[in-house]
């Protein structure tokens, strides 16, 4: 049986993936951490298509950590499709980008992002961010329950 993911990280940079994995595992050892490396793979994962077809029936991740600059399909488009899909639109999407440009931030919120975080440069800050995110989105935040996903 395939387990529900706690966090789906959409990130193409292997170094960032490893750092994120490191940071999240450090603060929450039991975290089910899934990673996809481009926008297309992310959509396949979420819509249970292609290589992820066997995930059909599994609940969507508890939250999505989304980078904006992605190969194939970019983060904004991924966000747009998530928020446009009746079965996925209640999944919290946290944009994790290195861009602090006001226009990027505004566009993400316009498309329905639930949060926007700028990747910190310091590893210490990064681990702090990871712990804050998991504390807030995985523990404090109430997600939409299974069965309530249908519109």
């Amino acid at each position, binding site marked *: 049986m395939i387990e529900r993911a706690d966090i789906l990280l959409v990130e193409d940079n292997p170094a960032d993936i490893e750092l994120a994995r490191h940071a999240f595992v450090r603060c929450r050892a039991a975290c089910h951490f899934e990673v996809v490396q481009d926008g297309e793979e992310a959509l396949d994962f979420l819509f249970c298509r292609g290589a992820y077809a066997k995930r059909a029936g599994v609940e969507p991740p508890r939250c999505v950590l989304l980078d904006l600059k992605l190969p194939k399909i970019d983060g904004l488009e991924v966000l747009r499709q998530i928020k446009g899909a009746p079965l996925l639109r209640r999944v919290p999407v946290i944009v994790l980008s290195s861009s602090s440009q006001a226009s990027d931030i505004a566009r993400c919120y316009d498309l329905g992002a639930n949060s926007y975080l700028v990747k910190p*440069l310091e590893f210490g800050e990064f681990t702090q961010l990871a712990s804050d995110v998991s504390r807030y989105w995985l523990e404090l935040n109430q997600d939409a329950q299974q069965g309530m996903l249908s519109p």
Partner: protein
Amino acid sequence: MMRGTGAEYLWGAGLGLKAWVGALPWWDWPLLVPLVGGGAWIAFRAWRRHVVRSRRLRILARERMYREVFEFSALAMAEENPQNLAEIAPRLLQALCGVGGWEGGAFWEVYGERLICVAWWQSASCPTDALEAFSRTHQFAKGEDFAGRVWELNAPLWLSEFAGAEGWEFPRATAFAEAGMRAAFGFPMRSGNRVVGVLEFFGKELRVPDAPMEALFWATSRQVAQLIERRRVETQMRCQAELLDLSYAAMMVWQDPGGISFWNRAAETLYGYTRGEALGHSPEDLLATRYPAGGREAVQAVLGKSGVWEGLLEHRTKSGLQLTVESRMVFFRGAVETAIGAVMESNLDVTEQRRAQAEVLALNLALEQRVTERTADLEAANRELEAFSYSVSHDLRGPLRAITGFASILEEETKGRLGPEGARLLGVILQNAHRMGRLVNDLLDFARLSRQPLDRRPVDMEHLVRECFEDLAPERAGRRVELVVATLPECTADVSLLRQALLNLLSNAVKFTRVRDPGRVEVGATIQQGSPVVYWVKDNGTGFDPKYAGKLFGVFQRLHPGDDYEGTGVGLTIVQRIIHRHGGRIWGEGVVDSGATFFFTLEGNGHGHGHGRGGVGQPGPATEGVRP
């Protein structure tokens, strides 16, 4: 001076008449024959008859003489050219003196408000040179002197024994007396009812003119007045013609049919045709006129309707040059409805002007085109900059994060096992990575400055300064740094940008006062009437060598070794960019080890500050240190 010589036949004839009258008794001789041969009664009757008849004859003869004098003089005057009035006048005076039995006469003309003696005649037997000289060198106002009195009265005036007469003291009285003249007779010359001159006669005794003589004077004076008037009109017309020739506008008068009847000097100059060549031709043929839209008919329609047309015409000169003229035409209808009216046309050459205008227009268009191109270039550059900054933010920060991240993980996981040298090297890696991170962030801030639109609002400077200083608490941690803020005038600025600038300035001040305890940062403002408020930030830190003041604001320019003071060399560049975007200026003054002061304004020199509150603080920017 002119003395009557009787040389000219016409005038001589007038004088001859008097001699003829003097010979009258010769004709009566046959009447005396019956007296010799008849009775005393008869002789008496005859004598009576003779006396009556001779008196009647004398009167008749005198009247005839007057009439003839008048006819001669009037006819002569009608023939005369009014411009020769100065020559005619003495002869006229001579003739009238002869008739009236005066010794001499003066001819006065009214010029504006003054009466001027323009001609003089005196009999050879009675020289009046001194009187003439006096008269000719004096001008009289209305009512002044004898002549002025006649002018004022506008009626004949005679006077005898004026040397002693009461109420007749006038400037020339003495001169009259000295010349032996004791009586005078004055007569106004009228045009309409306006006195244009005065005829004045004088003699040893008063000769009161009889009615026929007075009539003669009236008639003659009217003739002379007309002559004076004609001369005035002619002079005026000649002046106007001269005036038309003075004009820079080419002027012409023409009729259709009939062609050009007037052509001034400017027209000759402009078009190259002399008056002789132009007269009689239609201007349209002569100048190959090209009319504006609507053509000749449109011009004629406007002329016929309103009488005036203004517009641009194309003309060709005699030498074939094509001209553009600013034309103004006035249409004069003929006196009779059917008569052909005349057009007065005044043209100004505007060819050069129009060419210059067209050039300016073309230049403006080219300039606009260039501005558009440059703007497009600038926009492209801005887009590139945006792309670059985005790329920097994403592509440079990624690897940096990896370096710091993995170095940190390594540091944690190998704690103690790496050895002191290994730990030191790892520290160096982390330190440099952090510095590069700040550099990237600063560069991003800098790049973003140019793109962010300026949002000017009133800003409470004092509050903002204190806020920024609070934000710098981490940088001040463990140190004593005093902040002294003077009363600062409010300003109008983009708060977020101004905050950034103040943060950088204050951060600099905090950083470079590290060697002092306590560090001291002062913020103040200097207000001068008519110039923008100058804000300043002063510290008691390490200062800088004034010779490097020009390098303060360059990107990556650092005046201190990197190890002494952390920093990227972008901070002041950002401040400068922010100040410049507000239209202000920034400059710095410093002395090594004696602190630095940065001055800035938030508006150009053209604006007044318009804030009433005065600033306090001692450092005044007496001289402009550096103008970056």
